[in-house]
């Protein structure tokens, strides 16, 4: 994969070599099970607690409020199902949005099967949550509001602070899926006011297979994984010590490097946006113009389908993604773009470029160079076009 230009950091990031180095001793030198009492285990336990402190520090939380999980999806399922089940006596209503990641959406769908009611709040054309609809959907049975911090497809950042205010006024727990924001923009659980917050290591140069859930002290929540006495009885399972150590280091690196990185990514993103919209006709930029992740560019290119563009980009050594149904296991194009009012066929022509730590202006320029001819070639094959507009 020598000269690959990787522009899919919202899907996953390469693990930072400094993270891997920190993990290595915990595979077969300090391999003890942290729950055991001998010295070897003590080393593992100490490393785990140090990582917990790093995660807590990044979020401005207390270490005891951090529970390690196996991925972002587990953190989301834990938060959503855990709060719903633990507070069922109070009510059976949950509020979320139409543009959540499937980890939250499908956890909610499962709750519906278990007798819960779920409200899926709309978004505007930029992907911003409809706060009035949110307010109107609250009932005295609402136990949880779960709204993502930033959307993974279009990068729109949601007004979590306002939503938390609404939740607080109504005595409702507030969870945010911050899988796409932790390590990328400032995430402060007290500033945001949330009760629960999910993150995933591999989205910010930590390893795959580890995530965390922030649970504010006093929050009533059921476990998702029941078993041994791990993680203060909140998440059972022998701890993935190397993964947890890696997550801790990823958090430390984020604290040191995030701010500068954010500026760099914004410059790259703007360069790409400007270059593509200048050189290709009929391109629509998705997401909020300002309240958007600095490294995310999502566009719809009319008359062509996303997967075919991705394959040709891949042929040129460029990795990106699309909201086309053809790139996922599903049959519908991106639920996020659809919720933003974009037609199915236009949604099929979406491309997402997500920049990261290793990218340079040269990478961006290569995309600007190769994408236009790819698009013209595919448009020549397309039964649509300006003259026969069907979009």
């Amino acid at each position, binding site marked *: 994969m020598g000269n690959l230009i990787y522009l899919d950091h919202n899907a996953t990031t390469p693990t930072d070599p400094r993270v891997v180095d920190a993990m290595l001793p915990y595979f077969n030198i300090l391999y003890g099970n942290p729950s055991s009492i001998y010295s070897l285990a003590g080393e593992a336990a100490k490393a785990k607690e140090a990582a917990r402190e790093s995660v807590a520090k990044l979020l401005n939380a207390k270490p005891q409020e951090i529970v390690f999980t196996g991925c972002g999806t587990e953190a989301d399922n834990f938060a959503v199902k855990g709060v719903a089940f633990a507070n069922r006596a109070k009510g059976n209503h949950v509020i979320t949005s139409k543009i959540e990641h499937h980890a939250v959406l499908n956890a909610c769908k499962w709750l519906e099967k278990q007798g819960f009611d779920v409200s899926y709040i709309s978004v505007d054309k930029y992907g911003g949550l409809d706060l009035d609809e949110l307010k109107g959907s609250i009932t005295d049975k609402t136990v949880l509001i779960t709204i993502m911090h930033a959307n993974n497809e279009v990068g729109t950042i949601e007004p979590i602070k306002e939503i938390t205010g609404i939740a607080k006024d109504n005595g409702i727990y507030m969870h945010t899926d911050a899988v796409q924001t932790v390590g990328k923009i400032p995430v402060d659980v007290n500033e945001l006011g949330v009760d629960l917050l999910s993150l995933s290591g591999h989205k910010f140069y930590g390893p795959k297979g580890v995530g965390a859930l922030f649970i504010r002290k006093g929050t009533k929540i059921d476990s998702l994984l029941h078993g041994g006495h791990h993680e203060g009885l909140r998440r059972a399972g022998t701890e993935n010590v190397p993964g947890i150590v890696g997550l801790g280091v990823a958090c430390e690196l984020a604290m040191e490097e995030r701010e500068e990185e954010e500026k760099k990514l914004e410059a790259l993103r703007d360069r790409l946006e400007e270059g593509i919209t200048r050189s290709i006709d009929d391109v629509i930029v998705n997401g909020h113009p300002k309240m958007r992740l600095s490294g995310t560019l999502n566009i719809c290119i009319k*008359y*062509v*389908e*996303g*997967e*075919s563009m991705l*394959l*040709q980009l891949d*042929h040129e050594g460029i990795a990106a993604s699309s909201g*086309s*149904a*053809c*790139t996922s*296991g599903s*049959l*519908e*194009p991106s639920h996020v773009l659809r919720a933003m009012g974009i*037609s*199915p*066929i236009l949604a*099929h022509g979406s491309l997402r470029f997500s920049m990261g730590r290793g990218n340079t202006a040269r990478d961006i320029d290569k995309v600007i160079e190769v994408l236009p001819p790819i698009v013209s070639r595919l448009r*020549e*094959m*397309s*039964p*649509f076009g300006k003259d026969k507009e*069907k979009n």
Partner: protein
Amino acid sequence: MMYSEKVMEHFMNPRNVGEIEDADGVGQVGNPVCGDIMTIYIKVKDDVITDIKFKTFGCGAAIATSSMVTELVKGKTIEEALTITNRDVAEELEGLPPLKMHCSLLAEEGLKAAIEDYKKKQERKIRDSRIQG
């Protein structure tokens, strides 16, 4: 890569892309929600498909199957063309991922739609010539 080399070859260098202005049959199949739309144009002479072209909006598999079906069919009689199934197309492409089998179905259906259109037009011509005659 989830696609075979053959699929990629047809996707990168599709055969018979385009429209036929004075086509004898045109078929459009697909569904914008699923993201695949295929239009097939045929020229027929003495029951033989002498020319065929396609335009496809769709994923790699959709474009490759479009290309492959046009290649398989060119020069064949209508009757022969009608025996071609989506499995034949997929096999000629050295297989398709399970989730993409529906694209090969699209190719089969697109071809059949074009032939049907051709037949309808023929019937109409015959009817018209009767009326004239």
